[in-house]
């Protein structure tokens, strides 16, 4: 059984601040990890993915995430946020044996204040 935990339901920062959104997973084998973004009133959009190699992966709009096997984590970071980054962010995990089935966390709502 795979689970994804996003411990922070809400995060509020100011424009220009850095931000880290946390994701921890529980899975017994090799995995894919990904992040998706959901702007209000829209479907989810892919941000980035990790499945092997360099544990730091780059995504769109300056986002990056770092995989840590020892911590079972895949935290999302951005060095300087913009008001347009306000959205809900979802972490997802899928196993190598059935990589087409993604299991999502409960999401973190990021609010960027001007």
């Amino acid at each position, binding site marked *: 059984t795979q689970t994804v935990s996003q411990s922070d339901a809400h995060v509020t920062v100011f424009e220009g601040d850095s931000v880290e959104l946390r994701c921890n997973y529980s899975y017994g084998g090799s995995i894919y990890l990904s992040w998706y973004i959901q702007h209000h009133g829209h479907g989810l959009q892919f941000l980035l993915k990790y499945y092997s190699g360099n544990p730091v992966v780059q995504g769109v709009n300056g986002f990056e995430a770092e995989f840590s096997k020892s911590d079972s984590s895949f935290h999302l970071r951005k060095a300087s946020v913009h008001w347009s980054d306000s959205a809900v962010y979802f972490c997802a995990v899928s196993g190598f044996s059935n990589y087409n089935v*993604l299991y999502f966390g*409960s999401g973190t709502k990021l609010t960027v204040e001007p």
Partner: protein
Amino acid sequence: EAAVTQSPRNKVTVTGGNVTLSCRQTNSHNYMYWYRQDTGHGLRLIHYSYGAGNLQIGDVPDGYKATRTTQEDFFLLLELASPSQTSLYFCASSGGLGGRQNTLYFGAGTRLSVL
């Protein structure tokens, strides 16, 4: 850019009613999915399919049927709707070949209210 279209965008029905949610993707993806989104639960997988005529059960299938009639079309059926099925429903598709191909492309969602 992958295109996934859901209809209707909003639906209101009564308890015991019959509802069909439709989804069409135009990118020849193998996989299609139905998720529901509820506050505090994130997205939960209801059913998915890897091709026409195929159906796989997800994590929360009770009360839902699904049918994949063609490569493009995937339907979610609620034959006796209950208030617990009030939710935001998303359809998604993916190429299904691994690596970058398991990226999901989502529709805009269908908001269903069961009174």
